[in-house]
């Protein structure tokens, strides 16, 4: 039998019945409850005494202790004792009737109330037990790892992803959930999994990886073009009480576990009717012998009732209610059903905010494998947790847990569930649990928050929290892992490099697929496991030079500029409407005179960019930013040209996504598909978007961003395979460091700053870019493909287009520029005029 003092239940539960008491009031009740037995005892003795008096009444009437109020009558009786004998008997009889009537009425009322209470309890039991017993949180999964010939798959990625999905290395991969590696050749015994587009059965996969790419893929039937591994669980959308469980059917539970549970917790489970008088008597004797509570008399049914319907409150009323409800439960449901409910209900641990309920989830949580794969030592460990999930936690209290496990193994052997030899062997096994921080058990708060937000456009929160929906997302755990590690390592480096920064730097990152707008990783804080302020979504910070591509885009689109056009980088002064003067300076406080437009971008020259922006028109620049996907308000002030506008990393990612995808504006998305708990597809979210730019113009803009990486402020990346495109950004006083860039597969936006907006001793190049670089190095760089549409045209020293055989610098152009008249070699054309004093003049 169980030991009530040791039993634990999660601290927060919301499955309320009318009889529940909130946890806040529990201590008060507990104090009151201590007095209750005494009061009850006192009442009982009084009533027994009263009953005794009533019964002996007629005999004592000879020597009555009459009440004073009746003294007159008593005197008259004394005067005529014989005659009064009959009268006295009559009075006694009347008194008796007088007592009986209210007692009977009271009894009737109590019986009626009891009957009503029983009917109510019965309704409660049936209501909760007949239908859906639990609120099942939505289970959220990462993208599955899709294997196909040609896939870029570094072996370390495969190894990590297998381990995150709770696969175990083995000498021979002969059961689902195992893998073996022999050099470049892998054998993976994949588990069956209900994907959104249909269930797939277990499969033994042979995989070859050469030069970091999949070169062979086969199963028992021969070569295969495509096989998916099951996706990693990345979190849930929980109800307020954060209960999580993985429902199992009784037939899927190892019989050894069922037997061990019964012999340990309730040996007579199959014999009693919900309450076990024998068990209670035994517990009472044990407690009496020990002088304290050492054993409980609750049956499994009572434990289930307590956890399922009631609170942990320890009162007589609650105990009575528990007993009656147990009887009712046994009356309506068979033992197997009750046992199955118990196996799914019992609280077995805590993982942060998440309460681990049921053996199914506990098996994955503690051992990283499904219930049916557990060995007898692991089964005994889990059964041991029933007595106290925290007290016997194998991770926090391994010694205590091992002792408990060994005790249960002995009980199992004594009851012939396992042999003595098996029990001894199991006791020799060390207490090994899977890491609680492994991929398959940790959560991704920042990504989950955005996924939840996007899901709520189509689903009610309540349904997400209770219906056990399965959410398949776009998260790539390998990319997420890469950005988390890169960010952490680089922030530590930055903090060690400068004094007074220790622990102050924060970061956020968004990584998407270049062509699909699928969010592959999201970092909302330096501590990736932090459930709190999500900087990737909510930190609106000045974007600095990340705004500049919009200025150059407006210039290119105007048809008046090309990358070889010369822009004046001398100091510029813009007078505002209210007399304010804006005088941007270059980062190095130097002026460069006339520079080719591409240099203005690659060197991130503020003066040249401001002048160009004012010339093409502030309104046009704002239009470009909006067309690129920025939905926040963009005040048309000149300082906007240099990024004096605050956007979140996600908004910046949206803007650069349109550039990276050649002008296809797509809402960045986290969800691929949603199915019911049974696997029926409810929604799928394939690509959607709008071609908002001519792809030729986007390729042209991309050339400028490629030069930023090749020779400009992001040249720290030119050690990677080229071309890559990107832009650094640093806000005023270096309060924000940004980098946005993309290769052929991924777009990444990184922000580094401090929450109090303090200046920092580094820029976008040194603060944010290294995180991007390290992330891409970890996930593999795939250079951008050559432009499909641009043509080369020679540009003269003064920025004019030249004929094919003239000397000059060659720049890419849209083919339509070939139609422009190109003068003979060395005959210049008119340059664009500058030196306008007020921004009104530019606007005119």
């Amino acid at each position: 039998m169980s030991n009530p003092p040791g039993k634990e239940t999660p601290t927060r539960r919301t499955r309320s019945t009318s009889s529940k008491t909130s946890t806040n009031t529990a201590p008060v009740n507990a104090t009151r409850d201590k007095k209750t037995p005494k009061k009850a005892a006192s009442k009982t003795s009084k009533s027994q005494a009263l009953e005794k008096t009533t019964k002996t009444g007629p005999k004592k009437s000879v020597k009555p202790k009459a009440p004073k109020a009746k003294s007159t009558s008593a005197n008259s009786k004394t005067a005529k004792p014989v005659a009064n004998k009959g009268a006295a008997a009559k009075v006694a009889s009347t008194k008796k009737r007088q007592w009986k009537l209210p007692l009977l009425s009271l009894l009737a009322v109590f019986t009626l109330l009891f009957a009503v209470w029983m009917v109510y309890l019965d309704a409660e039991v049936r209501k909760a037990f007949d239908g859906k017993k639990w609120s099942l949180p939505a289970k959220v999964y990462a993208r599955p790892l899709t294997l196909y010939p040609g896939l870029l798959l570094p072996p370390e990625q495969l190894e990590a992803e297998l381990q995150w999905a709770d696969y175990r290395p083995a000498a021979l991969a002969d059961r689902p959930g195992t893998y073996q590696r022999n050099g470049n050749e892998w054998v993976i015994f994949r588990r069956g999994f209900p994907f959104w587009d249909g269930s797939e059965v277990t499969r033994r996969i042979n995989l070859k990886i050469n030069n970091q790419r999949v070169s062979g893929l086969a199963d028992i039937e021969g070569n295969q073009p495509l096989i998916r591994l099951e996706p990693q669980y990345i979190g849930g959308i929980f109800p307020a009480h954060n209960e999580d469980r993985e429902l199992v059917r009784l037939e899927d539970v190892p019989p050894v576990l069922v037997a061990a549970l019964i012999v340990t917790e309730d040996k007579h489970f199959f014999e009693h009717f919900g309450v076990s008088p024998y068990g209670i008597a035994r517990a009472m004797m044990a407690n009496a012998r020990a002088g304290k509570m050492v054993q409980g008399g609750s049956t499994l049914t009572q434990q289930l009732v307590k956890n399922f319907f009631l609170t942990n409150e320890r009162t007589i009323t609650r105990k009575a209610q528990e007993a009656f409800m147990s009887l009712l439960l046994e009356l309506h449901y068979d033992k197997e059903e009750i046992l199955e409910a118990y196996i799914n209900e019992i609280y077995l641990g805590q993982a942060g905010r998440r309460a681990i309920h049921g053996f199914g989830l506990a098996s994955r949580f503690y051992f990283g494998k499904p219930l049916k794969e557990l060995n007898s030592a692991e089964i005994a460990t889990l059964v041991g947790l029933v007595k106290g999930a925290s007290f016997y936690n194998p991770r926090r209290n391994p010694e205590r847990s091992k002792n408990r496990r060994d005790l249960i193994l002995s009980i199992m052997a004594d009851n012939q569930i396992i042999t003595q030899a098996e029990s001894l062997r199991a006791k020799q096994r060390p207490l090994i649990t899977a890491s609680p921080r492994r991929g398959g058990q940790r959560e991704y708060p920042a990504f989950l928050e955005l996924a939840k937000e996007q899901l709520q456009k189509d689903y009610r929160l309540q349904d997400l929290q209770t219906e056990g929906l399965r959410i398949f997302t776009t998260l790539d755990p390998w990319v997420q892992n890469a950005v988390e590690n890169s960010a952490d390592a680089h922030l530590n480096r930055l903090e060690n490099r400068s004094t007074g920064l220790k622990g102050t730097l924060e970061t956020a990152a968004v990584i998407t697929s270049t062509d699909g707008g699928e969010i592959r990783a999201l970092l909302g804080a330096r501590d990736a496991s932090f459930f709190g302020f999500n900087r990737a979504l909510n930190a609106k910070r000045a974007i600095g030079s990340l705004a500049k591509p919009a200025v150059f885009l407006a210039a290119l689109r105007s048809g008046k500029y090309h990358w070889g056009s010369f822009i004046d980088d001398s100091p510029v002064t813009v007078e505002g409407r209210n007399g304010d003067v804006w005088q941007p300076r270059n980062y190095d406080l130097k002026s460069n005179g006339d520079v080719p437009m591409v240099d203005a971008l690659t060197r991130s020259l503020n003066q040249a960019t401001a002048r160009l922006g004012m010339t093409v028109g502030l309104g046009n620049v704002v239009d470009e930013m909006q067309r690129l996907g920025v939905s926040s308000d963009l005040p048309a002030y000149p300082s906007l040209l240099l990024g004096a506008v605050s956007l979140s990393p996600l908004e910046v990612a949206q803007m650069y996504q349109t550039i990276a995808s050649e002008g296809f504006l797509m809402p960045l998305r986290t969800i691929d598909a949603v199915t019911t708990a049974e696997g029926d597809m409810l929604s799928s979210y394939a690509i959607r978007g709008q071609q908002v730019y001519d792809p030729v113009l986007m390729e042209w803009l991309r050339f400028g961003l490629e030069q930023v990486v090749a020779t400009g402020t992001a040249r720290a990346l030119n050690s990677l395979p080229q071309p890559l495109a990107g832009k650094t950004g640093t806000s005023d006083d270096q309060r924000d460091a940004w980098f946005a860039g993309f290769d052929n597969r991924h777009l990444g936006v990184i922000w580094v700053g401090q929450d109090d907006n303090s200046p920092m001793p580094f820029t976008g190049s040194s603060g944010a870019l290294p995180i991007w670089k390290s992330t891409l190095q970890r996930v593999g760089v795939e250079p951008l493909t050559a432009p499909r549409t641009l043509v080369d045209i020679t540009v003269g020293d003064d920025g004019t287009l030249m004929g094919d055989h003239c000397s000059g610098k060659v720049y890419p152009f849209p083919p339509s520029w070939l139609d422009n008249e190109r003068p003979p070699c060395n005959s210049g054309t008119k340059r664009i005029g500058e030196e306008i004093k007020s921004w009104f003049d530019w606007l005119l």
Partner: protein
Amino acid sequence: MVRLVVISLLLTGLVGCATNDGANNADADYGQYRDGSEHPAVLMLFKQSDNAVQAGNWSAAMTYLDQARRIEPRNPYVLYRQAWASAQSGDTERARQLLERARVYVNKDDELLNYRLYELEFQINP
């Protein structure tokens, strides 16, 4: 001569599109078009998508095609098929968007696909 035959066949398909429902169109269209990809995984996903179309399960068809798109994101045939499946399932807005997207990557010399895009556009905006 070969081109004439192909165009005649396509025109026959177009007539079919105008008169039959979506599921039947699938038979008419997919049987005669080459796949536009040599990638075995993409071909397999095309096949699965075709099966879903045959079963009238447009949602599943789109998810198979979207998996193909992830493998070959700039394959105009994949984008064309996604546009086509969107159109058949009544999502003309997405069909229009993906049609535009397919046009970004279609080779000017690929007369067959260009014709199919034209045909689909005609179907979306008769």
